[in-house]
C-alpha cells in the first residue's frame, strides 16, 4: 500500500527552499542592476562637478593666484564625495585630501588646463579623486535588508498559512490516503470539490474492482455454463430412464438439472450482453406465487444435504400459501440457494437445523431463513447489513453471496436484513413487494 503523501515534508524539503533561493537570486540581481544605474548616474554627476571645479579654479591658476586656488580646493573638499584634489603647475603643487580611510571604489578625473583653445601648452593639471565606496556599502546594506525582510515575511506567511490551513491539510492527507486505499469516508469539506472528487474516485475504484472481479467471474461463468450444458443434457436423459428410481426422485433430479440448465443459459446470456453495470442489468420480474418457488428450493436443498451431516431443513408456508410477490424466479432461487448454503456452512459440524418460513404482512411477503449455527460477529453483521461484500470464517464462502442476494432483492424493490447472535444462530429476513 502506498504511503500517504506528507505535505509538510514536501513543503520544507522542496517548495520553501526553492522559493527562498529563487527570490534571493532575483532580489540580488535587481539590486545589482540598481547599483549599476546609481553608479552610472553618480559618475555622470561627478563629471559635471569636476568640470564645474575646473571652471572655478582656472582663473586663479592662470593668474598665478595659488593661494586662492588652494582656498577653492579646500572648499571643494566639503563635498563628501571628493577624496583628494591635486593641482600641479610649473610653480607649485597643491594637494588637498579629506580624511579618507581606505576606499574600495575611487573615480579619478584629470584634465590639463590650456592657456587658450588653440594652445597646446598647459598651465596646470588638475586631478580630482572621488570616493564612491559609500555605494558599495549602500548596496550591501540593501541586500542584507532585502534578505532579512524576505526571510521574516516567509516565516510569517508560512506561520499564517500553517495555522489557517491546518484543518485543510489534515483533510487533504485523509483524502489522499483514502484515494490510495479505495475507501471513501465522510468529510467536513473545506475543499468541497476535492472531497467530492475523492469520493467519486473511491467509488470508481470500488466499481472498477467489482467490474474486474465481475469480468473474470463472467468469463468463468460463461465458460462453466457452456461446458456444463452437455453433461446436464446427459444427466437429464439418463435420469428419465432410471426405472429403479422412484417417480418423485426422478422428478427432483429433472427439476434440479433443469434449474442448472436455466442457470447456465442465464450466465451465457449475461456474458454475451457484455459487462455493463451488473447492478443495473435489466431483470425480468413479475408477480408470482412464492410458495412453489420456496418449496422447490427447499426440496432441492434437502436432497443436496441429505447424505451429509445431521442437517434438518424445515419449511413452513402455512401463513404464506397464497402470497404473490414481485420477483424474478431464477434470481430468487439463486439467492435462496446461496443463503441456505451459508446457513448450512455456519452449522456445527455435528448437526444443525434450518427453518425456512414464508409469511406475509399487510404489504409485504416475508421469507425467513433461520439457522442455529455459529452466528456472525457483530462488527461483520453491521457491514453485511450495510451491503459490504465480506466473508467471515466460512470455509468456502466468497462473500459475494449475501451481497449479491441483497442487491437482487433490492432490485425487486424488496429488502434483506440479517439478524445474528454468535453461538446462537442467524436469521435472514427477505421482504418482497406483495400483490394485494
Amino acid at each position, binding site marked *: 500500500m502506498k504511503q500517504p503523501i506528507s505535505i509538510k515534508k514536501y513543503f520544507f524539503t522542496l517548495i520553501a527552499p526553492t522559493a527562498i533561493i529563487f527570490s534571493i537570486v532575483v532580489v540580488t540581481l535587481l539590486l545589482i542592476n540598481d547599483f549599476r544605474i546609481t553608479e552610472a548616474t553618480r559618475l555622470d554627476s561627478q563629471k559635471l562637478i569636476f568640470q564645474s571645479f575646473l571652471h572655478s579654479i*582656472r*582663473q*586663479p591658476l*592662470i*593668474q*598665478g*593666484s*595659488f*593661494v*586662492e586656488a588652494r*582656498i577653492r580646493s579646500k572648499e571643494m573638499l566639503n563635498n563628501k564625495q571628493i577624496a583628494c584634489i591635486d593641482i600641479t*603647475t*610649473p*610653480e*607649485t603643487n597643491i594637494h588637498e585630501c579629506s580624511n579618507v580611510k581606505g576606499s574600495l571604489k575611487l573615480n579619478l578625473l584629470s584634465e590639463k588646463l590650456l*592657456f*587658450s*583653445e588653440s*594652445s597646446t*601648452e598647459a*598651465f596646470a593639471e588638475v586631478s580630482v579623486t572621488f570616493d564612491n565606496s559609500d555605494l558599495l556599502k549602500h548596496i550591501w546594506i540593501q541586500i542584507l535588508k532585502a534578505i532579512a525582510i524576505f526571510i521574516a515575511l516567509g516565516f510569517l506567511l508560512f506561520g499564517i498559512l500553517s495555522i489557517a490551513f491546518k484543518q485543510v491539510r489534515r483533510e487533504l492527507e485523509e483524502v489522499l490516503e483514502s484515494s490510495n486505499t479505495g475507501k471513501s469516508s465522510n468529510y467536513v469539506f473545506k475543499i468541497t470539490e476535492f472531497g467530492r472528487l475523492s469520493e467519486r474516485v473511491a467509488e470508481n475504484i470500488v466499481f472498477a474492482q467489482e467490474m474486474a472481479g465481475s469480468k473474470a467471474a463472467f468469463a468463468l461463468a460463461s465458460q462453466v455454463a457452456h461446458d456444463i450444458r452437455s453433461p446436464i443434457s446427459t444427466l437429464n436423459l439418463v435420469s428419465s430412464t432410471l426405472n429403479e428410481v422412484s417417480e418423485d426422485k426422478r422428478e427432483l433430479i429433472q427439476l434440479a438439472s433443469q434449474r442448472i440448465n436455466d442457470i447456465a443459459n442465464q450466465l451465457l446470456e449475461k456474458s454475451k450482453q457484455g459487462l455493463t453495470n451488473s447492478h443495473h442489468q435489466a431483470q425480468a420480474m413479475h408477480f408470482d406465487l412464492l410458495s412453489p418457488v420456496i418449496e422447490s428450493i427447499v426440496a432441492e436443498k434437502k436432497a443436496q444435504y441429505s447424505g451429509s451431516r445431521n442437517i434438518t431443513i424445515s419449511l413452513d408456508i402455512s401463513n404464506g400459501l397464497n402470497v404473490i410477490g414481485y420477483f424474478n424466479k431464477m434470481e430468487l432461487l439463486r439467492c435462496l440457494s446461496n443463503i441456505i448454503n451459508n446457513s448450512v456452512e455456519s452449522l456445527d459440524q455435528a448437526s444443525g437445523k434450518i427453518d425456512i418460513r414464508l409469511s406475509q404482512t399487510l404489504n409485504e411477503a416475508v421469507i425467513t431463513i433461520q439457522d442455529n449455527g455459529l452466528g456472525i460477529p457483530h462488527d461483520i453483521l453491521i457491514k453485511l447489513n450495510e451491503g459490504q461484500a465480506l466473508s467471515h470464517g466460512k470455509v468456502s464462502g466468497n462473500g459475494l453471496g449475501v451481497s449479491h442476494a441483497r442487491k437482487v432483492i433490492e432490485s425487486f424493490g424488496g429488502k434483506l436484513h440479517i439478524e445474528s447472535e454468535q453461538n446462537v444462530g442467524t436469521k435472514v429476513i427477505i421482504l418482497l413487494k406483495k400483490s394485494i
Partner: protein
Amino acid sequence: MQTIKYSIFIGVFLMSNLTLADNTYKYGYVPQSFPRDPVEVNQFAEHILLGQVLEPLIETDKFGNVVAGLAESWKFSKDGLSVELKIANKRKFSNGKELTAKDVKYTLNRILEKKSQSSNFLSSIQEVKILNDHKIEIKLKDPNVAILKALSRDQVGIVPENWNFDKKSNEALIGTGPYRLLKLNDKWHFVVNELYPNSSSIVIKNWELLYFTGQGIDIPQNEIPDFVPCATQAIKDSVLKLNNTKAFEVFDQVSFAQTSAWWHPSGANYDSREIQNRAMDFIEYAFQKGSEVLKQRRATGVIPKGVSGHTTESKLSVNKPKINQKKTNLRIAYSGSMFDEFIKQVDLKKIAKEFNFDLEVVRLEITDLPKISENKPDMVFGAWAGGFNDPEGFIALLSGFLGKDFKAYIGSSLSKLYLQARSEQDWTKRSTIFRELNERLRSERYMAPGWGIPLYVIGKDKINEEEATFRYTPRLHLVKIDAK
C-alpha cells in the same frame, strides 16, 4: 589732353571706390582725436579702436577671463614677484617685422615712462627683462593679483621696437592685430591684416571709420553706419533718428561705465573739511536728482556693480544746511560730453545755492582731461568704463585723473587698506577689503557716485557680432554677415 587726365582721375577714383565698396562696412563712431599715441589714449571710444589693430600680451575672452594673447604661456615665481612670459613664435606686425621680446620690452617701457593713465595700471611693474628672443620676465614691486588683467588692456597692445606714433603716416598704428589702420582717400579704414593668423576667416575685410562731427558726440547726418558698438544712449538716439529704425537692431551691452565726482586736490577749498562735506552733500543730492531725471541707475561707488568689491547701497543721506547769505565759491570741472545732458536738465546752480554755494562749472574737451588740474577745480566730474574687469581697473586710473598719487590722496588709513587689498591673495578677502575701501571713499567724502552709463550695440539687421558679454571691447574681426 586735359580730357584724358580727367578720365584717368575719374577712373582711378572710381576704381578706388569700387575697391572700397567691395566688402566695406561703416564703423561708428570715432572721436576726432583718433588716431593717437596709445600711451596717451584715455577715452573708451579710442581704446576700443586700438584693440582692433594692436594685440596685448594677455587676452580676455568674452566672459572677461584671462586667456593667452601674444604671450602664449607664462609662469609666476613662487613669491608672486615676477612672471615669465613666452612670446608667440612666428607672429608678425602688419609691416612684416617679426615679433620678438624686444618689441614687448619696448612697448611696456614706453608706457611706464610716459606717466599716463596706462602707466598707472602698470605701476606695480618694476622692470622688464629680456630672457631670450621670445621670453621676457616682468618683475613686480609687490605681488599684484590683477597684473595680467592690466596687461590685457588695449592701450598695452604691442608695437614694434623703436616705433613712434606719427599722425601723418598713412598707417598711424603698427600692430599684430586682425586689422591695419590705413588712410585711404583721406579716410581712415580698418583693413584686414593679411599677416594675422587665419585672416582669411575674417568676414568683413574693410571698415570705414565714421567720425563724430565735432569734439562732442554729434554724428554725421549723411552717413549711415553699419555697426556701432559701445554706443551711449545719446548716440543710440541719434543713430536711430538717421534712418528707418527697422533697418537697425539694438542690443544691450554689458557696461561698467559710470559717472562720479571727486574732491580735487588742486581746488582752493581742498583743505576745508566743512566745505568738502557740504560740497559732497550738494553733489550727492544733485546726482540723485540727475539719475532720476536721466532715468539711469544710480551708481554705488567707484567700483561698479558686477565687479568684485562693489557695494550695493546707492543712497546716502545728505544734510541740507540752513541757507545763509554768505556763499562759498565752488568750481566744478569736467571733460567730454558725458555730463552735458545732466547739466542741461538739472539746475545745478540753483541746487548749489541751497547748499550755500556759488557754483561755477567748467567744461573741457576730452583730450584736455590730463590738464584738468590746471583749472584748479574744487571738484571734478569723471566718466569712465574702467581699465578691466577688476577693482584695480577702476582705481588705478585715479592718480592721473586727480593729479596726485592715489595713495597720497586717500591718506594713510585708506592707503593701508588699498595696499592690503592689492596684495591679498585670497580673492574673497580681497573683494571684502576693496568693498570696504569703496564704501569709505564715499562715506569719507572723497567721491560721490553718479549713475551707470548703459551701452548698446547697434547694427544693421544682417550684421551679427559675437554676443556682447564681459569682454571689455568688441572684436570687429568676429563680426559676421547673415546669409539671409
